[in-house]
């Protein structure tokens, strides 16, 4: 196995990781600030992808498609927050799980009602397609590099937003003591709607960006949702930093596990059995990582609450 291949796989893992971060950031903020478990976050990812595919199909512009994805997901998020989620902040976790599970059903079948049962088409724009040569003779798809860039950019902006702006201070204060900041005159329900819409927009953006290299179809959000939960639990719920590090860990574990575990088993097994056992173990790797982290640190790497 050559060094070039290893570097390329690490890049792949990073790219997968930063896309997970876009999902996980919203999820962890929503949980940290409002104490809400939002299973419907994956549906907002799907909404973003479908909106992008529809607009790209109509206008042919990828930038417009991304804007549409952001807007559609933010709108869907706002509506859902006002109609349903708002009533759940004080409810038990169980009720939240059930209600947002119900939202998944409504979103998925509703989307199928509108767009039909067949996957939609969404492609990378010409100016981002094809591979480029990196130093050291590595050929790597430009679009994936752009994804890494976009993800890191969002991470930096989020960090800036939460630590350097007024809204960020309110958000962090809301995590710690919601009565107090309400008493200080912050319109808490507007803040909640804003945070929810922001999380939704990030999920929608991730859906559109990833939709261009994957398949835009009903149910696309659920596998990502589970992984995003794994990420925020590993990182510690409510922590943006934790979500970032958790995303990279999960992205790298999943990608590198899939490549290297079968190779590892080939050392002491025959090829056919090794590929099968290795792949089986690779598909469990992320969950093994998560349970090990939780057994070691029961509130995740950067979690605060006991």
């Amino acid at each position, binding site marked *: 196995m050559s060094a070039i291949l290893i570097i390329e796989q690490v890049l792949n893992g990073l790219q997968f990781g930063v896309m997970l971060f876009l999902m996980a950031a919203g999820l962890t903020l929503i949980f940290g600030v409002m104490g809400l478990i939002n299973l419907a976050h994956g549906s907002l990812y799907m909404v973003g992808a479908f909106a992008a595919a529809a607009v790209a199909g109509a206008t042919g512009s990828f930038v417009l498609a991304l804007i549409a994805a952001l807007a559609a997901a933010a709108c869907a998020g706002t509506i859902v927050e006002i109609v349903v989620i708002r009533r759940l902040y004080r409810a038990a976790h169980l009720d939240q799980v059930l*209600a947002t599970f119900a939202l998944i059903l*409504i979103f*998925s079948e509703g989307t199928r009602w509108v767009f039909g049962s067949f996957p939609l088409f969404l492609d990378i724009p010409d100016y981002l397609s094809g591979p480029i040569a990196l130093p050291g003779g590595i050929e790597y798809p430009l679009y994936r590099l752009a994804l890494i860039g976009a993800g890191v950019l969002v991470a930096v902006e989020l960090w800036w937003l939460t630590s350097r702006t007024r809204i960020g201070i309110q958000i962090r204060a809301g995590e710690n003591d919601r009565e107090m900041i309400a008493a200080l005159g912050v319109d808490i329900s507007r803040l909640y709607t804003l945070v929810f819409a922001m999380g939704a927009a990030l999920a929608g953006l991730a859906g559109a960006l990833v939709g261009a290299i994957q398949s835009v179809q009903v149910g696309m959000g659920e596998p990502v949702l589970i992984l995003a*939960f794994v990420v925020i639990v590993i990182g510690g719920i409510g922590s943006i930093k934790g979500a970032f590090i958790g995303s990279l860990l999960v992205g790298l574990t999943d990608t590198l596990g899939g490549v290297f575990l079968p190779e590892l088993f080939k050392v002491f097994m025959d090829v056919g059995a090794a590929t099968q056992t290795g792949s089986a173990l690779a598909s*469990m790797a992320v969950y093994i990582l*998560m349970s090990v982290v939780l057994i070691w640190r*029961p509130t995740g790497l950067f979690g605060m609450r006991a």
Partner: protein
Amino acid sequence: MIGERYINGLVLAGFLAVPIWALAMDEPFTITLATRASVLAMAAVGLNIALGIGGLVSLGHAVFFGLGGYAMGILAHHAQTHAALDLGFLAIEGSRSMPVIWITAVTVSALAALLIGLLSLRTTGVYFIMITLAFGQMFFFFSISWSAYGGEDGLSIYVRNGFPGLDTLVPIQFFGLCFTALCAALLLHWRLRASPFGMALNAARQVPRRVETVGLNPMRLKLLAFVVSGAVTGLAGALFADLNRFVSPTMFSWQLSGELIVLIIIGGVGRLMGPVIGAALFVALEHFLGGLTDFWHVWLGAILLLIVLFARGGLIGILTGKDGPRV
């Protein structure tokens, strides 16, 4: 408002009446539906021991359901192919006898619950939900790629396993068996809740520190509840597999864990009969809505949403006018 005790009696009576009516009207499929509802109810009753009394929201109970199912599948598969299960140091004959399968299912799932409980109970709240989910996903992916027992295709058992003195292929007799098992699980839940153990467990859910100060170990209480809970769900899994004469990795899926929780919430969390009402309603909705429109999930979602938003305490909560315990 109606007392919970009357509701409980009515529900059980209704559960018995439907299949008997179906038998009289010669509608065997209705009996199959009632059997499905009672098996799902039993799985949720198992979960309700951990969730309702102990406050342990497990999103991984499909593990035990699936283990029970595969206990049936693997034993019956070996009996069907007349090849002993060779573990290297020990060769196990397959079996087509339900009692043997049940004992295996209960033992295996109790052991798994002990192990998973030991590791997971170090965490609480959302972390507990997620770590149980992680164990569920591990079993799910493992079973998909385990080709010796069919992988994703699952295992088909051509004839339902036998129970001494019964013809299990007759729908009403198999229903009787499943319904009896459900009643036994309900009895267990009821006795547990009223026992000193149940009281201590309930207290450990609400104020763990006080339980500790009276010299009880809340961790051990919770672990025991988790093991009993897993064992009951495991037995339900074995029955479910026999109902379908088929096991597959979907029995391990997180959607199934989620459905079990849904059943409990529909009926009412922490209520003895909550899962039974929930399962009956769920199976009925699945059957009737599914017959009306391809897009029945939308309506199912809307109904669930209405229940959460406007019927805190589930259906039993509406009927009795009292909220259930918070979890």
